[in-house]
């Protein structure tokens, strides 16, 4: 399993975000060139339609321009920060309920007391194991977790898909998440 990116790429994207936070337009342009391909792929995976995905990706970069100064306090690695914004933006559009998971909500959370970047270092290294750990899961649970993350499925939709009662679905998925967390931390 290869990491999300090399240390060098990570540092350079981090440096670009830092300069974007200071209003550096050329850094923004370069950040776009370096990351738009991946973020478009995320939006396309969620929205399944190219024009809608490009539109969502554009919104992602507007959010990045306006919120780059908050990146440092989130504890994400630069790419996971960008992917999270892209995924949430695309899911918002998919669900057409823009207010629920907008970045406003997201950034309020990030201002929470005592949150420091150091605290997430462990999880960043864990994340490399996620695909292997997903493989270890029962295939239905795996499909439920990826359905929730990449397709924005609700418990109701998942319970319909797997033809189980809603509460059973929830229990399943939570057990899957707990198993995933356990696998990734070892």
């Amino acid at each position, binding site marked *: 399993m290869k990491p999300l990116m090399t240390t060098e790429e990570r540092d350079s994207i981090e440096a670009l975000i830092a300069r974007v936070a200071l209003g*550096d*337009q*050329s850094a923004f342009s370069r950040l776009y060139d370096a990351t738009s*391909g991946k973020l*478009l792929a995320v939006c396309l*995976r969620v929205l399944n339609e190219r024009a809608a995905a490009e539109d969502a990706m554009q919104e992602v970069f*507007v959010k990045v321009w306006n919120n780059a100064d908050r990146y440092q306090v989130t504890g994400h690695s630069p790419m996971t920060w960008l992917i999270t914004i892209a995924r949430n933006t695309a899911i918002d559009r998919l669900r057409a309920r823009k207010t629920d998971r907008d970045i406003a*909500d997201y950034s309020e959370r990030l201002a929470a007391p005592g949150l420091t970047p150091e605290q997430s270092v462990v999880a960043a290294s864990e994340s490399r194991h996620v695909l292997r750990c997903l493989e270890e899961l029962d295939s239905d649970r795996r499909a439920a977790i990826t359905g929730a993350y990449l397709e924005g499925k609700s418990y109701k939709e998942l319970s319909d898909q797997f033809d189980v009662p809603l509460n059973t679905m929830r229990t399943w998925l939570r057990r899957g998440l707990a198993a995933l967390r356990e696998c990734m931390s070892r």
Partner: protein
Amino acid sequence: MTPDQAPDEQDLLAAEYALGLLTGEELSEARRLAVTDSAFAQSVTDWEIRMAALADDLVPEVPAPAVKMALLAKVFPAPRPKPLWERLWVWQATAAASLLVLVAAFVFDPGRAVLTTGPLYTAEIVADSGDFRVVAVIDKSTNEVFLTRTAGAAPEGRILQVWAHGPGEPAISVGLWPDGDTIRLPMPQTIAAVQGVLTLGVSEEPPGGSPTGSPSGRVFGTVDIAGVSSRS
């Protein structure tokens, strides 16, 4: 949900929140915890990081070039550097005359075979007390800064020194200005590389320049020049 539920329960609630699976009261509760409880907020971030790895396998797609153009137009409503004659309009009356002379001297420098092709940026450094003024032209085609003193001077036995820095960076010396009304200085590589806001300043220093590497005497003033880039 209660605040004293098991940590594991809290972490799974954070996971469900990160995935967007919560509704109703549980969603409200998770939102409240996300802004009030740093451990919960951290759990949400950790789940976001874990889940982002699901994007690892996605093959990057090349967006249409029009998407970037539309984005840049949307995000940067500010105009691109204007032609020189238009920018001259913004000059205050006090500086306009000297600037015209300055630019004429600059552009029609006999040592120069062709007119400059890179962006030119003009700015004025004015001391708060008004006793010192310098007009500056930055030529990105050669990465030089050309300065003209229009009021004031270094005190007896002292010289002027020119400083610059990019956003959030410490000022570094561009060069000494021992005498004369005008001076042309090549920009140090660090300063030539600045994109965005370039800050320029002038201080008075002992002969030979500041001994500390930073301004040590009176800083007459600084000016922020926005939107500096190497694009022509």
